[in-house]
Structure formats: structure tokens, C-alpha cells
């Protein structure tokens, strides 16, 4: 009986060691730092919200982009009409006629709206197109030139928590 107890105790100790390794042990690559919340700049995450929206528009995922908007934005800007939203986005952001588009995302700025903290972020879309200009009608000579136009969108970010958010759009300038 004593021998049996000793054997079982040894097995139990070995199993407990394996269990502890399983719970606490990990390879160096899979460790995360708890300091991450202090070091991590959450404004980077807010930039992702706007990037996410723009990407969806650029790849014609209008359903998903539309679902990211606040109810007020849907109503005020698009009369709750998704078709209208699609047309507007095609015209203002996607703009097939423009050959090159460059997006620049500013940092999200904290602001107060109706006593609630929200974030405001501007995105600049630079459209570049090529045009032709006739310089000599008789000789049918023409010159190719590049022209640019800038669309600015002000995103308002209503965040309940990290990755739990809704957006509101405001086109500032064309």
C-alpha cells in the first residue's frame, strides 16, 4: 500500500509540474507584455477605423462600409438610402476617372459633443488625373498635363471601446 502511495505521489508531482508548465510556460515568441496598454498609442487604432472604411469603399464593399455609420449620419447625409450612399461614395472617394489616389490620415483629435467624448479625424484624398491641352491647333500639337484635386473628409468617431465604434462623415471641401 505504501509503495502504491509513493508511486502515485510521484506521478501526481510530475503531472503538477507538467500542468504548471502548461499554464505558465510559453515560448519567447508567444509572450505578450502587459505594459503594452501603457506603451500602445491607441490613436493608431482610431486611424484603423477610418482606413477600414476607406478600404471597404475602394473595394466596393458598400454594405459593410454603410453598416459602420451612425444612424444619424445615415439619415442626415443619405436619407437612410444605401443606394444614395453608394453613388456618393463612388463619386467622392472611389472616382474611377481619377488615375491615382493618395490617402493621408491625420491623428484623431479628442473633442466633446453633447457632453460626450468623441474623436475627430481628417482624411485627405488626393486625386491625380491626366489631361490634354491643345497648344497648337494648326499643327494639332497638344500637351499632356497632370491635375490634382483634394477631397477632405472629417470622420467623427463614436467609440464605446477599442474596436467598438461607429463613424459619421462630413465632406469638408472639394
Amino acid at each position: 500500500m505504501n509503495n502504491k502511495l509513493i508511486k502515485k505521489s510521484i506521478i501526481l508531482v510530475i503531472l503538477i509540474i507538467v500542468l504548471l508548465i502548461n499554464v505558465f510556460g510559453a515560448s519567447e515568441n508567444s509572450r505578450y507584455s502587459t505594459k503594452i496598454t501603457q506603451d500602445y498609442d491607441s490613436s493608431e487604432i482610431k486611424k484603423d477605423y477610418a482606413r477600414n472604411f476607406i478600404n471597404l469603399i475602394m473595394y466596393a464593399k458598400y454594405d459593410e462600409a454603410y453598416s459602420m455609420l451612425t444612424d444619424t449620419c445615415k439619415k442626415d447625409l443619405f436619407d437612410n438610402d444605401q443606394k444614395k450612399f453608394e453613388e456618393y461614395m463612388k463619386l467622392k472617394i472611389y472616382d474611377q476617372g481619377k488615375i491615382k489616389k493618395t490617402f493621408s490620415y491625420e491623428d484623431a483629435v479628442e473633442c466633446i459633443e453633447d457632453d460626450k467624448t468623441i474623436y475627430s479625424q481628417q482624411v485627405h484624398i488626393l486625386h491625380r488625373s491626366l489631361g490634354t491641352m491643345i497648344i497648337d491647333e494648326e499643327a494639332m500639337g497638344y500637351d499632356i498635363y497632370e491635375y490634382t484635386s483634394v477631397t477632405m473628409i472629417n470622420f467623427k468617431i463614436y467609440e464605446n471601446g477599442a474596436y467598438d465604434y461607429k463613424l459619421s462623415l462630413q465632406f469638408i471641401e472639394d
Partner: protein
Amino acid sequence: MGKKVINNLLSIFIVLIVIYLIYSIIEPVFYNKEIVKQNYDKITDEESLIVDSCVKTYLEYCINNNQKEIKGMIPFINKFNMNKYTNLSQMYKEKEIESLDQCIVSGIKKINNSIYQVEVQSRSGNVVDGIIKNTIIIKLKKMGHSFKVYYDMNLNEEGV
């Protein structure tokens, strides 16, 4: 009599630990894209940021085909088929996803106490491919401050 009780208790502890260890080995099998919950658990900002960082680290290694590092992040049961991860890196290469900047974490949900579901959108450099959507499930081992990637939809897609 006392020895019999101790003997029985030891047996129970041994069985329980063995069951737990076996479960922890096969646990990743239970998590896949079929897990769709109606109500996810409430997630804190701190958890979101940790999960975001872990997933981005994993994605970076996948994009750069760092097999050794990936091996440290995947559960024991997946370590026998590392070819899958080579194919995954190859897929990223083919889709012209070359850096983490092309990947955006678009949503994080908490499935249960330690398991999180992350939606990722990767913008392919090849315009024809558009956005590649991915779902990744990770487990945070909070006591050991480490994580394991239980499921990667791209990895389990046919042909990858």
C-alpha cells in the same frame, strides 16, 4: 482506512489533471469559423489592445515566413504540419501582401474568458484580389502572459 482515502484522493487528482491536460491539447480543434455566438462577452480596452498586438505580431511573422517564431505561437496539435504555414506565407506573397501596413484589424470579439475572435482585412497589392478577409481565433494565457493562435481562416481555406 486513512491510506485508502489518500490513495483514492491521489487517483482522483491524477485523473483530473490528465483530463485537463488532454483537453488543453485538443482544445484548439473546437474553435473554428463555425463558432458564431449571438452574444459575445464584454471585452475591456486592455484586452482589445493586447489581442490586437498579439494578432499583428502573428500576422507579421506569417507575412515574413518566420517559421520558427510561428511555431512558438501555435498550439501543440498544429505543430506537426508546419507546411501549412509555409503555404500561408506563400499565399500572402502571391497576393502581394508584403507588410503589416496592408492588414487592418477590423473587429475583436470575446468568445469566452480567454478566447478571442479577430477579424482582419488585408489589402492585396494586386488590385484584382481586393480585400482578403480573415478570421483568427486566439487564446490568451493570462497567467503566463502568452498567447496561442487556435484558428486562422486563411490557413484552413481549401488550397492553402
